[in-house]
């Protein structure tokens, strides 16, 4: 799905990551991890085609070739509480650009609500949801496109440990049951060890691709945590 060879990434003339080799196949559960400022968001933005690589080759195939089957859960949400919206309306914004008949859009919305256990809250205000439910609504907003690939930038950030676990279980279920390829940016070392099939470990301006069960370098590089 994604083949990166000797990739250099950055902004303008400033290279942040270099020599990256990543080969991501359909159905895998990838984590992108590393300390703050190692270039995780830069890598994600490049995979979303929001940044052009400064060197190397990056090719996409399958669902990554266009945006129609790509779901994204961004790290931050810009909307404010004064913007009135229901859970269903918020989630349906994810179907922008999907070009589907109304009936399919409705079916996809039902699927996203059901897979994130938010069907009961569909007509409630988005702002009535708890922190964990709001995060699930953001994932549902990505799922409403019926994605083959889901990219989530720090989806567990700011959540309680218990809610983090529930959310990661939900992501694992999406990967195992629905066959969605997952790329999750996370600082959570335990989550990486527990859920990842593969991991891109970013450090010292480069990236190392690891495959389960060979996750030992995570401990060596990141030591006592991130």
């Amino acid at each position, binding site marked *: 799905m994604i083949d990166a060879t000797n990739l250099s990434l950055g902004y303008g003339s400033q290279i942040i990551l270099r020599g990256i080799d990543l080969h991501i196949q359909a159905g895998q559960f990838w984590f992108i991890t590393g300390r703050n400022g190692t270039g995780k968001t830069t890598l994600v933005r490049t995979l979303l085609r929001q940044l052009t690589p400064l060197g190397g080759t990056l090719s996409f195939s399958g669902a990554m070739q266009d945006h129609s089957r790509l779901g994204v859960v961004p790290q931050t949400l810009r909307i404010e509480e004064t913007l*009135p919206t229901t859970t269903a309306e918020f989630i349906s914004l994810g179907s*922008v650009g999907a070009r589907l008949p109304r009936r399919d859009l409705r079916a996809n919305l039902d699927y996203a609500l059901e897979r994130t256990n938010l069907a009961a809250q569909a007509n409630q205000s988005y*702002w009535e949801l708890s922190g964990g439910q709001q995060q699930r609504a953001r994932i549902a907003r990505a799922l409403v496109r019926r994605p083959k690939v889901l990219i989530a930038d720090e989806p567990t950030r700011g959540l309680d440990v218990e809610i983090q676990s529930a959310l990661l279980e939900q992501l694992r279920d999406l990967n195992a049951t629905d066959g969605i390829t997952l790329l999750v940016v996370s600082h959570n070392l335990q989550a990486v060890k527990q859920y990842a099939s593969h991991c891109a470990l970013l450090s010292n301006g480069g990236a190392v691709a690891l495959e389960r069960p060979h996750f030992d370098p995570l401990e060596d590089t990141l030591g006592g945590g991130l």
Partner: protein
Amino acid sequence: MTESFLSELAFHWTLYQNMFAQGILIAVTLSLTGVLVVARNQIFTGAAISAASTLGIALALVLAQYSTVHHHTPDDDHATNWYHSDSFKTTMAVISAVAASLIVVGRGRSRNAYEARIGWIFLVSTVGANLLVAKSPHSLEEIHRVHSSSILGAAQSENVLLALVAMVTLLVLSATWRGQLLLATDPEMASSSGMRASLWQWIYAIWLAICIGLAIRFSGLLYTFGMLVLPALIARSCCHTMRTVLIASPIVALGATLLVFVPELIPGWSTGYPSEQLAIFLLGVALLPAWCYQQLRLRWQQGRASHR
């Protein structure tokens, strides 16, 4: 008695029909566009672009004066007539509005830089418009009328143009509503959804400027800015979804416009107050209870969220 009332009504209608149509068309166009302005939290962008349009009208007045002074040959007649026409003022208002809009709305930069640019445009345009015509009492009076929105009155052909703009706004917003809302609230997500976010930002900036530039020339700064933000703010405070905000905003604007303009059409019902200012005052007053309702709702929602 009835006959004389009807003949007076017909006379009032002939006198005010263009003003009536114009007030309604501007209210609908701006209140629809304003939903996006409010969703983007760019309320003062409207004020800055409105002020820039006023500067455009002042420039038009100065150029008209200049063309009269330097009018030498009969060949100059055509150009001089154009400089003195309402179309020239409208064109200059729209050009200034587009220039201002491209400066402030264009690409997403930091919030501080964005607000600084808005403040700069507002101040320079407002002061510039007054200074440009300061030595010409007639032009100065026209600029004051633009500022205070006491100038309603358009030809039928101009109403056709306003109707066209209102229709395009309605059609484009209805067809691309979900995308526009996503772009307004989460541009990165819109971009990663395959939407041409950058192109749409420019289209939005230019269209907003065209709507404001046209409205300013016909109805002045207060009515334009008021109709752009107040109906959308009232609708946002009272509605449950953004889709209903899109429907409610023009209804609120129409309601205020009809409430103020209809008495002008009926003999003996005129309030004697400037209609445009009265409409904006009514909307401003209506926003207060809407805000109270919004605060109560937000508190209730926060309570529900913390109990989950």
